């Protein structure tokens, strides 16, 4: 029980002192001319050297938050962080002489509030990101479905025509060409999407090998020239370096980049020309793909570099908007650079630069390598539609072909033949092509084994190479690529 006597100071004094100390309260009185009259409370907390504050200091010099406001109206500013770092709630109250400014230290409360708000804001940002990703996925599915359906419709339509019992009046070659062209388009689209997916999860592997420049560009030309011819666009390649330079490159990905860039040029050109200019300098290979197409507005150049990004004025033209962004990703992965110069209505030039090794001239590599070559190929494949097609591709290139559609047939053929190469199906009927490869090599098979696989997974390709395969060919089988890989291994 407390006892009050007349000698005790009023309890309110102690309470006031306690509150002022704990909350660091300070009050400042100003007159109507905004000059300081008096200050009280824990002034040192805000102004460590209060003696320097003159009695006629102008209010806004002490407190910048007073600039612009009318202090004769009562005001409250919560959580103000002053230029000197102190955090206060500021109260402005009119008085008979002018006005008072009262400060309360809020550093602790503001920090706690900030922690909570920080979490809320970060969660909100993450929610927005997820929502944007979902939107992009939905857009992708819708665009991709459309892009698949268009060439598929052509393939189905033309193949139906070829199946007509009466073929009078049907241009078989033209229909077959249309099927082939649409098939190539589909394959390119699917490859791009798969590659983009791999790049998104950092699974794209850059694999380099010696490549003859003209061979690589001939493959690219084989794919894109028919498309340019169809639109009567002149397509040409200009070499600023020897055509038979051999360079160490990731041929597969570089071809993918060039095909993407040229098909874009064809897509967005109605007439004129498309050129590839090839230059080599200081261990850098440069391609400039130029066209006389519709061009890209400058403010949309960054948009079209993004996956599914399309310039506004091209949205009526077919395309998923994935080729350029993927090409950019692949070039960066190869350690190179991709840049675009474009003028609306005049055309576009895309420059790709990739690092490479010292170039050598191909003819200096294999001067007299043309010796008697075993050209027998064993096709170990169980798909009865695919075997005759592969055999046709091989025979037209002058190879001798033997086929095996089961493990027993394979072993039987190997008893009487010594093929230079076995094209081994990865899923060969009852056997695993990789296991079979190991077994054949362990048993002394001295030729080369090349894996045929419908899977684009890097893991399977690595397993095949580890098992002793010399190379791999992805399905669907590209005739030019098949010839090229066989030539490469038979000339080794």
């Amino acid at each position, binding site marked *: 029980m407390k006892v009050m006597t007349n000698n005790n100071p009023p309890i309110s004094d102690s309470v006031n002192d306690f509150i002022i100390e704990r909350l660091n309260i300070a009050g400042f009185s100003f007159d109507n001319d905004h000059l300081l009259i008096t200050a009280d409370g824990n002034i040192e907390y805000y102004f460590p050297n209060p003696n320097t504050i003159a009695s006629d200091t102008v209010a806004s010099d002490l407190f910048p*938050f007073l*600039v*612009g406001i009318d202090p004769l109206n009562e005001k409250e*500013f919560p959580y103000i962080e002053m230029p000197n770092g102190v955090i206060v709630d500021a109260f402005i109250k009119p008085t008979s002489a002018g006005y008072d400014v009262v400060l309360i230290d809020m550093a602790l409360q*503001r920090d706690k509030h*900030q922690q909570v708000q920080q979490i809320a*804001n970060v969660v909100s940002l993450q929610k927005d990101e997820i929502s944007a990703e979902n939107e992009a996925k939905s857009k992708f599915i819708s665009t991709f479905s459309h892009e698949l359906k268009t060439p598929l419709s052509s393939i189905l339509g033309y193949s139906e025509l070829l199946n007509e019992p009466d073929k009078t009046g049907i241009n078989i070659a033209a229909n077959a060409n249309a099927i082939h062209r649409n098939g190539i388009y589909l394959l390119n689209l699917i490859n791009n999407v798969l590659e983009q997916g791999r790049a998104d999860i950092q699974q794209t592997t850059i694999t380099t090998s010696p490549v003859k420049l003209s061979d690589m560009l001939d493959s690219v030309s084989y794919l894109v020239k028919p498309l340019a011819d169809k639109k009567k666009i002149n397509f040409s390649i200009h070499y600023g370096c020897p055509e038979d330079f051999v360079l160490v490159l990731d041929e597969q990905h570089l071809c993918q980049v060039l095909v993407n860039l040229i098909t874009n040029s064809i897509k967005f050109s109605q007439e004129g020309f498309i050129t590839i200019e090839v230059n080599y300098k200081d261990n850098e290979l440069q391609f400039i793909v130029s066209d006389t197409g519709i061009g890209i507005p400058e403010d949309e150049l960054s*948009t079209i570099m993004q996956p599914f990004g399309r310039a506004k004025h091209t949205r009526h033209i077919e395309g998923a908007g994935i080729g350029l962004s993927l090409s950019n990703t692949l070039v960066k992965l190869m350690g190179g650079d991709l840049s675009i110069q474009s003028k609306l209505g005049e055309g576009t030039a895309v420059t790709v630069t990739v690092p490479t090794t010292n170039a050598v001239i191909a003819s200096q590599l294999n001067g007299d390598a043309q010796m008697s070559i075993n050209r027998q190929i064993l096709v170990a494949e169980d798909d009865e539609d695919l075997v005759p097609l592969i055999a046709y591709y091989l025979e037209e290139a002058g190879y001798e072909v033997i086929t095996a559609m089961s493990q027993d047939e394979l072993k039987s053929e190997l008893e009487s033949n010594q093929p230079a190469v076995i094209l081994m199906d990865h899923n060969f009927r009852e056997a695993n092509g990789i296991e079979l490869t190991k077994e054949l090599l362990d048993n002394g098979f001295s030729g080369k084994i090349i894996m045929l696989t419908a899977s684009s997974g890097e893991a399977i390709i690595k397993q095949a190479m580890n098992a002793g395969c010399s190379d791999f060919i992805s399905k669907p089988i590209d005739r030019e690529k098949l010839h090229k890989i066989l030539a490469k291994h038979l000339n080794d």
Partner: protein
Amino acid sequence: MITKKICIIGDFAVGKTSLINRFVDNHFSEEYLTTVGVKLDTKELVTSNGTDIKLVIWDIAGADELTTAKRSYIDGASGYILVYDLSRPKTLESAKQIHASVVEEIGSVPFVLVGNKNDLQITAPEPDADLVDKSCHQLKTSALTGEGVADTFQALAEAVVSG
């Protein structure tokens, strides 16, 4: 020297504090630290007509609208910078709402419309002509690279001085 209060407003995480840090201290931090309440800074400039001006800059915590407490922060501002994030389209919508709240609170004063984070992929559409017409300037900035930052504050200072 004249002293004027200006505010920088916009949705959260559009880069308001980063723009001020770039302008006042020529500094940029990748770390996102949300502002709570308001942070004051000052910076002196000279306008093209030779007027010395000290800007008291109010960095007001972001939100998609101005709450009652935040409305008091706007009071007495001679101008403001309205910021949206070029990589987040919804922040442009927020900017329009915030602009409407500000006009309701203090009437029409000069403002600069700023699309920040120009170093990132732009996904926000171009702002409505109506909003652009009302602003005294429209700029794209990057607090990361410094692009357009000084121009933004200079443009607002010019507009504030010319009244």
